[in-house]
């Protein structure tokens, strides 16, 4: 049965095939757990889970405008880490840090599911970004695909850590067959 979930200004109208969908940061799940981080939404389908990360880069976030030329990794970091307002902190950061932060949220979520004994299906990771232009979003997608080992990356693995990785904006989610079959995405 279709299910609608809203978080951080985004709304997802998942299709009938959805088994369950919830905001992971809510009190009945992992809200208030300071030790670990998490993605924003989990949607369960018959054969897979979607771990959905929601990002909004805008002036409201830390009061810092998103200024991110594609070739300027420091600017991308500034957008991602609003508190890194001084040059020293920015210089210490790197694109790897962005990937590290997003990957950590994914991995922590995976551990929560491990604790719940609910890693019984493959997992796809989708980061939905608004406030970047299309070129910046594409750049972030390349960064994340390099940062997360997709598929069964080693002979010793029996299942992937993550099956598919995508970083998209709302329009691309809705315009891509591989993603819009899960449902529609909109933003306030």
């Amino acid at each position, binding site marked *: 049965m279709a299910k609608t979930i809203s978080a951080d200004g985004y709304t997802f109208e998942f299709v009938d095939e959805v088994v369950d969908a919830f905001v992971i940061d809510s009190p009945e799940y992992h809200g208030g757990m300071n030790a670990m981080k998490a993605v924003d939404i989990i949607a369960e389908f018959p054969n897979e889970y979607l771990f959905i990360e929601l990002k909004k880069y805008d002036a409201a976030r830390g009061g810092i405008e998103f200024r991110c*030329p594609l070739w300027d990794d420091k600017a991308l970091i500034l957008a991602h880490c609003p508190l890194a307002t001084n040059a020293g902190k920015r210089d210490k950061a790197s694109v790897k840090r962005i990937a590290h932060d997003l990957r950590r949220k994914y991995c922590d979520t995976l551990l929560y599911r491990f604790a719940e004994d609910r890693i019984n299906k493959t997992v796809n990771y989708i980061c939905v970004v608004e406030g970047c232009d*299309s070129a910046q979003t594409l750049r972030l997608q390349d960064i994340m695909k390099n940062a997360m080992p*997709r598929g069964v990356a080693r002979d010793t693995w029996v299942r992937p850590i993550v099956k598919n990785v995508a970083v998209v904006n709302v329009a691309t989610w809705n315009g891509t067959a591989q993603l819009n079959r899960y449902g529609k995405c909109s933003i306030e």
Partner: protein
Amino acid sequence: MLTEIKIENFTAFDNLEIELSEGINVLIGANGTGKTHLMKLLYGAMQQADSNAVKTMDQTLQGLFLPDSLGRLVKRSLGRGKGEFTVTRKEEDGVERSIRYELSTLGKSQVINSRIWGRQKQYNVVYIPVKDMLANSPGFKSLYEKRELYFESVYADIITMALLPPTKGPGSKEKGRMLDMIQDVIEGKVEKKNEKFYLKNGHGNLEFTLLAEGYRKMGLLYSLIQNESISAGSVLFWDEPEANLNPRLASKVVKILLELQRMGTQIFIATHDYVMLKELELSTNAAQDHVAYHALYMEGGKIKSQTTSELKEINHNTINDTFDSLMVRTIGNDWED
């Protein structure tokens, strides 16, 4: 400064009306949406405004577009027809002047207000075409004047402008800053000898033919700023400044364009480049800079336009559309069921 252009049934356009910024005008759009045509019409009109102008508007347009016959500049349609364009400029004293050019498919033309429009004072109008010409400059100018060469006039014009010797005196601080900035990039100064261009640095003189095309482009900009062809009160048209430039140099080009604009140069650039647009967006200071983005796009077989002061407000941005398409295709290629 140029304030407005209206075009009807002329070259690629059916009906177009664009208000121009006194600062930087950025023309974006897919191939075939008339960016270069628009700049050439404005350039031609400004050439007619110059007190040194010797060509008629007919001759100017013939040289700029090289049509088989002048009447071909009327937008093609069945049967006989007419086309026209009107360009308006505002003088420093606030007076507005317009010139209207009408042309029939038979090549019969009429210029309205040419006296009011032209020969008032000397204007520096520069058009930098996409292709580099400095490396091929020796002899080109005299050959172009004496023979029928199938080169658009902008190629001869740019060599003429670049070959002008430097102005006397130290020049303004802004000029010095811009020349220093270019010198940092090309690691030397531009020198001219017998219509040849050289890059002069600690290792001697290096011929322009041995320089990377991107450096030649920066060298051209150096010459034009050094001899004040581009200065306060001048109009600069630059077709695809990004051509042959590494994207990292886009920030330098944008800094120079903004500096020129703050000095009082009116600028027109046509670009397909995301990096150039993004640098301009990030470097613009809303309090002191005047930038207008003019998006040209096809709708119902006709070229339309949208003008905004902010890049993100453009609805017809083919560059963003292309990145969107890449994003979709990337996911489509490697998403496994």
